[in-house]
């Protein structure tokens, strides 16, 4: 009752108008959390309920954005703590530049996604899952918002768990399919293994500090403890971010979730893992150089292997999921560089590494959600996720094709789009660490630069393959009913994400000051802060110049070609083949075959060859597939092995409650005896 007293109300109202952005952000978070509830009172097939959900999501995002602008404009951190009656911790939230960077995708992408859902997943056609999807979609967005705001480790764990569980329900929306249930189960196990590490981490932090507040640790920690803390941070949050050996859950969950869920999971939720790492590493004192190098190596591993696996995929959404692993790898490399900068006391490396990583967080959330939403449109049109059955869609889905092309150029990190800018900042950092002041760290940075190049080249191969097989050439399956561009409700969110990619690519200097503030949080006091390079202006000018030149040249060449074109339409010549058929085209598997062969020891493709044994052979088929090495060849066999070994423990584990109570009785008696007689 106390909560609703007039006094409280007056206090809250005063807070609202005092301009504290936290009030607006909290209100936005609560609105997002609850956005799916009204729809539950409508019928299962009611599109009205879904529209209300979308409206509430939009309202929540709008309120949140107002708060976000206030927080960014104030250029100072805000904090708010409120005691609660739970045994531990407090409701302690805050917003600073780092939170603000991660808040933006949370406020934009889920709202776009839920609007997209009106066309993609209308409740009238999905009576079984529509309301649940809306409920957990908002819950995921709200939980992520509070993850970024939480300044208390207990609160953080609670909203973290809410986020993880609502993502589980979203990923298993189509749970009639056993494959979906399997991937959901793997996700649940993986995310809780991560949470277990986080619990250990926060218990250790509490042990050191005596409180659950997330504040900087003393600098005199013994090295083994520091290493343990770093390892727990990277593993605990790495499970959520999808770093390479911990990515087990990611491809399956992303592929089997509805597309707007994949967009939010990949575009925003993975970033929560990144946020955790960035937030926790500031609390620690500067780490030894080794740790920065390890982070760089982990990032490079994720990047290269993520892309190698993506190249082997023929499932559209699995491919995009592996490419998320690659992008998280790139982001981690930036964080690794900033960590090196902290160890070496070099503000420039911190600024370029962290600035690049944070910029890439934004870029990735934009182009990856664009690509996932686009993939949803394709799946709707073709009823398959296998890209080897697609082809020639650019002619029939021209709008989707153009948006997809833009997303592909952005994700390959090519100029003039946003993907390039973040990578460029990181490269600049790697090249800067070639000088004498970086001492023993420069070979690591140099190797990282070369690895980043390789990642870029692999990404180019992968996305040329994807775009080429899906949209270019001839349709591979002739029995498709004519596919067409998706409805405007699906196209508009994609176009907005694409506009974001263009804006960040053309005007990266507009976000410079926010990134600079976030970087300042990482820069140790007493170190002269390094301004993010003015050459961002150059990047902007060149991006605009390049685009202008290309557009002008196209405006010149296209009409000329139309006039010069031979009057009769011709099929493709290709050295005079009289009867080219769609089956002769390169498939995605064929396109990637050489690269997959280069990585064959790491990604172990499964190839089922056929051999002709009889004089009159039957129809045979050839099949190739790239399973996940870590999951399908290491972790699952390990679990199968343990499952076979553990039945011997049934002697003790009988599943009867009486027996367990007996164990407890015996244990307590034993302990009491020990205390009484031996102490």
């Amino acid at each position: 009752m106390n909560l609703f007293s007039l006094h409280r109300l007056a206090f809250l109202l005063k807070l609202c108008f005092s301009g504290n952005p936290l009030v607006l952000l909290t209100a936005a978070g609560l609105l997002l959390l609850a956005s799916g509830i009204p729809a539950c009172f409508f019928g299962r097939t009611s599109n009205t309920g879904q529209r209300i959900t979308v409206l509430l999501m939009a309202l929540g995002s709008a309120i949140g954005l107002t708060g976000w602008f206030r927080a960014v404009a104030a250029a100072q951190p805000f904090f708010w703590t409120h005691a609660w009656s739970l045994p531990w911790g407090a409701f302690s939230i805050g917003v600073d530049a780092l939170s603000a960077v991660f808040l933006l995708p949370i406020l934009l992408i889920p709202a776009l996604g839920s609007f997209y859902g009106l066309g993609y997943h209308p409740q009238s056609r999905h009576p079984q899952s529509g309301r649940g999807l809306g409920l957990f979609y908002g819950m995921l967005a709200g939980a992520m918002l509070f993850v970024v705001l939480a300044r208390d480790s207990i609160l953080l764990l609670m909203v973290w768990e809410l986020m993880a569980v609502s993502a589980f329900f979203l990923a298993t929306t189509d749970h009639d399919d056993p494959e979906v249930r399997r991937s959901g189960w793997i996700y649940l196990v993986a995310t809780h293994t991560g949470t277990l590490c986080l619990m250990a981490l926060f218990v250790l932090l509490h042990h050191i500090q005596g409180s659950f507040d997330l504040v900087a640790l003393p600098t005199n920690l013994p090295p083994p403890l520091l290493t343990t803390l770093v390892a727990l941070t990277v593993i605990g949050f790495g499970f959520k971010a999808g770093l390479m050996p911990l990515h087990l859950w990611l491809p399956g969950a992303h592929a089997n979730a509805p597309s707007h869920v994949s967009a939010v999971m990949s575009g925003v939720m993975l970033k929560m893992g990144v946020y955790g790492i960035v937030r926790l590493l500031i609390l620690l004192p500067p780490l030894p150089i080794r740790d920065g190098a390890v982070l760089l190596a982990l990032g490079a591993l994720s990047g290269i292997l993520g892309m190698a696996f993506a190249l082997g995929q023929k499932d559209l959404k699995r491919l995009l999921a592996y490419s998320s692993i690659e992008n998280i790898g790139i982001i981690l490399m930036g964080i690794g560089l900033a960590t090196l900068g902290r160890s070496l006391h070099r503000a420039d490396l911190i600024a370029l590494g962290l600035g690049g990583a944070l910029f890439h967080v934004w870029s990735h959330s934009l182009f990856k959600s664009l690509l996932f939403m686009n993939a949803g449109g394709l799946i709707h049109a073709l009823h398959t996720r296998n890209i080897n059955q697609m082809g020639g869609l650019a002619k029939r889905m021209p709008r989707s094709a153009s948006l997809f092309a833009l997303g592909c150029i952005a994700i390959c990190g090519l100029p003039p789009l946003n993907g390039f800018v973040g990578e460029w900042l990181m490269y600049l950092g790697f090249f800067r660490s070639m000088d004498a002041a970086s001492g023993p760290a420069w070979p690591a940075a140099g190797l990282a630069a070369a690895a980043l190049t390789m990642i870029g080249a692999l990404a180019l191969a992968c996305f040329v393959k994807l775009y080429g097989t899906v949209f270019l050439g001839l349709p591979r399956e002739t029995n498709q009913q004519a596919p067409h561009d998706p409805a405007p409700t699906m196209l508009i969110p994609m176009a907005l994400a694409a506009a974001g990619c263009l804006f960040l690519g053309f005007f990266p200097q507009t976000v410079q000051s926010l990134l600079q503030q976030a970087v300042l949080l990482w820069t140790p006091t007493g170190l002269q802060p390094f301004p993010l390079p003015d050459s961002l202006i150059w990047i902007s000018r060149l991006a605009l110049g390049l685009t202008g030149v290309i557009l002008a040249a196209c405006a010149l060449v296209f009409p000329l070609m139309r006039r010069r074109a031979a009057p009769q339409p011709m099929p493709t010549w290709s050295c005079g083949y009289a009867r080219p058929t769609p089956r002769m085209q390169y498939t995605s598997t064929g396109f990637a075959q050489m690269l997959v062969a280069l990585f064959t020891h790491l990604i172990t493709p499964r190839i089922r060859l056929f051999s002709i044994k009889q004089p009159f052979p039957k129809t045979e088929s050839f099949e190739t597939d790239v399973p996940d090495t870590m999951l399908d060849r290491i972790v699952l066999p390990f679990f199968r092995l343990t499952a076979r070994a553990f039945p011997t423990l049934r002697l003790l584990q009988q599943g009867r409650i009486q027996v367990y109570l007996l164990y407890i009785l015996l244990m307590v008696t034993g302990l009491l005896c020990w205390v009484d007689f031996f102490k």
Partner: protein
Amino acid sequence: MNTALLILFHLALLLAMPPLLPGIINKIKARAAGRKGPPVLQLYYDLFKLARKQVVLSQTTTWIFIAAPVVTLAALLIAGLMVPFGSFPAPLSFTGDLILFAYLLALGRFFTTSAALDTGSAFEGMGAAREVTFACLSEPALFFALLVLAKMSGALVLADLLHAPLTASWQTAAAPMVLVAVGLFIILLAENCRIPVDDPNTHLELTMIHEVMVLDHSGPLLGLILYGASIKLFILSALFLHIAAPFQAATPLGNALLFLIEIPLTAVAVGLVESVMARLQMRHVPYLLIAAILFCGFGFILLVR
């Protein structure tokens, strides 16, 4: 006055000189084989001829097919503005332009390979697959080379980086420089699809990379592609020369002459390699490119001391 003149000089060279290089290469190859060979200016004639021709567009293709040659050429021209010719400064240079340089080449590759897939033909898909595969090995090699130069010069601007060998002390830097020069020469051959990686003269589909990707382009579009390819050869030769022949004359005129002599000599070197070597088996090409990574990588390791 000087700056404007230098920019004009750079632009004139960049726009007018590249088609000369394939002519020289072909002449050298013909002479080495005891033939007379086509005129050195053959590519200029070809370009003029192609500019006046009709275009045949396949029904399968989309806007990518027409846009690709344009985008590739634009990207290459802007990249060409960042590479200094000889000991002159580059017209376009800013901190971190070396990364943009590499990525502009990649932008061209994205569009060229996409246009190849746009035709829906097996041959062109084959060429595109090879192109992107080999790029995954040649790009890290190029970056290792740039890293070695960055380590030696401490610069972040392509022009300063490439001018580093001019002032480097040969006692300490000779070994990495030699390794990087060899690596860069392999990259030069691979990126421009020359023997031993690719044979620009054969029309056996199974042996080609670049030629097979542009089979369906015709008329002015093919002209743009051929012109772009020669510009790429020119830019990478200019880049290679900074490491292989870091010489400087006393006067600007001398420097200009030096560059005008060195560039055709690079083409001669490429022509000689093509005359004495056979094309590698396609499955052995990655080994050559890994060798380029190793050369540049060992150059990098030599600096770690």
